[in-house]
């Protein structure tokens, strides 16, 4: 393996990791400030200007809290669970292209703005996010607590059900792009001066299904049943404290960022946009702007919608979203044969 490539990957991984962790940290602040704004209150604004140092304070607090392990807990699984939910959440970002190829000073070849690109990209991301469920299930089982167990069971059922609808809603995009490679999917949306996004050019239904199941997949309101605090105390992380809880927290927010990035790449054209062909530097900015839109949507949903009941959630996933996604596949296939 050439050393140059190894160095390139390492640098990209480091940059990606730092950006992801910073985004996660400031997303929590953004969420609390936005919720405060929507609920006519201040939100955290004391630490630093506009509360900008709040994530640092939170991190310090997490580290210095007492680390509690319940006596009856299954020790090995109890420690493994947070790690198993965090690692897949961080891994997925390597496949997301945040920009096109770019010339960088002192390097004679163009550098692509993604860590790696594989020909089964979309499936690989689904596989990695699918592994994240085990962290939650393990936490629920290992805590030896009925609320945790219920939370873990609910979450496994919910995540598996909505993963189906989510993967089915992507099939339309794959049919249209003719590839599972995320880089090629983005390249396919470059027409109409960078505005031929899949959401406009015949995947609006798929986009809506993806959007709903993406919120369910990340365990966010109104689908946050695994941790429904009014009935299950805190669900699967009832017994967790200190850094172990922080790892679940980071995993949840990293999953939100990844899901937003996926939605951007698959439906909103990734880094494509007007003027990118002339000025490639605009690409990452478009990408970040679209991603922020989805992240804002998450917070908006949390502030506006009440939580669903468990049977409503299951009915909605299996009896409404999944058939709709299947219909979308049939429509997409027909249109793809006729138009493309």
């Amino acid at each position, binding site marked *: 393996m050439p050393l140059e490539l190894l160095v390139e990957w390492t640098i990209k991984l480091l940059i990606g990791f730092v950006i992801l962790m910073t985004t996660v940290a400031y997303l929590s602040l953004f969420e609390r400030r936005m919720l405060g704004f929507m609920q006519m209150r201040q939100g955290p604004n004391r630490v630093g200007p506009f509360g900008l140092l709040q994530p640092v304070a939170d991190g310090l607090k997490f580290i210095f809290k007492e680390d509690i392990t319940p006596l009856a807990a299954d020790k090995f699984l109890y420690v493994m669970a947070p790690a198993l939910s965090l690692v897949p959440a961080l891994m997925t970002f390597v496949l997301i292209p945040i920009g096109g190829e770019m010339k960088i000073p002192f390097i004679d070849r163009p550098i692509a703005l993604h860590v790696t690109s594989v020909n089964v990209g979309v*499936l690989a991301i689904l*596989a990695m996010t*699918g592994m994240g469920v085990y962290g939650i*299930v393990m936490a629920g*089982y290992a805590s030896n607590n009925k609320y945790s167990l219920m939370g873990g069971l609910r979450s496994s059922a919910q995540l598996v059900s909505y993963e189906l609808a989510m993967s089915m809603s992507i099939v339309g995009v794959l049919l249209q792009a003719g590839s599972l490679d995320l880089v090629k999917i983005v390249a396919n949306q470059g027409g109409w001066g960078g505005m031929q996004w899949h959401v406009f050019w015949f995947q609006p239904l798929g986009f809506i299904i993806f959007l709903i199941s993406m919120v369910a997949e990340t365990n966010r309101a109104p689908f946050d049943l695994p941790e429904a605090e009014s009935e299950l105390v805190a669900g699967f992380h009832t017994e967790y404290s200190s850094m172990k809880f922080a790892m679940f927290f980071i995993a949840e927010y990293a999953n939100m960022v990844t899901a937003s990035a996926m939605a951007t790449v698959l439906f909103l054209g990734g880094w494509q946009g007007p003027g990118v062909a002339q000025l490639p530097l605009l690409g990452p900015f478009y990408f970040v702007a679209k991603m922020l839109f989805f992240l804002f949507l998450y917070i908006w949903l949390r502030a506006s919608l009440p939580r669903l009941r468990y049977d409503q959630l299951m009915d909605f996933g299996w009896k409404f979203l999944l058939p709709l996604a299947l219909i979308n596949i049939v429509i997409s296939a027909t249109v793809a044969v006729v138009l493309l």
Partner: protein
Amino acid sequence: MTFEQILFILFAGIVVGGAASVLLQRNPLYSAFSLITTFVGLACLYVTLKAQFLGVVQIVVYAGAIMMLFVFVIMLLNIRDEDTAVDPNRFLVYLTIPLGAILLGALLYVVTKVNLAQPTGDEGGTVERIGTNLLTKYLLPFEATSVLILMAVVGALHLAKREKE
């Protein structure tokens, strides 16, 4: 030793370690988690064999869906350490080890007859290639499995359903 061989030994270690752990664990949930480790190791091996598609499908279907079902059932029935030890009164159980050794010996004997060091073809298992073959040349088995899955769904629902008194 080349880079590929080191990778193979690493992944094979994960696979065999996980498989041995499936046998040695008393708690079914631990067995299930060990099996997931095995599946992830196998997926890595598939990728080294240029079968990227099946490597990913292995994780999505096996590790993601099938094992999730197992874990879900184990948690639903809430079994903790229920796997009973080997019953010493059943002397036939002790035959398992020599029989296993004979099976392994026979299989390895066959393996030594195969001496192919280099791949004869170089095309990997791309999505296009698998898809095209599956939907043209092998359409009948593909459709047959869809019927099988439907039957399994109906059968599973019927078996697990609580009978109304």
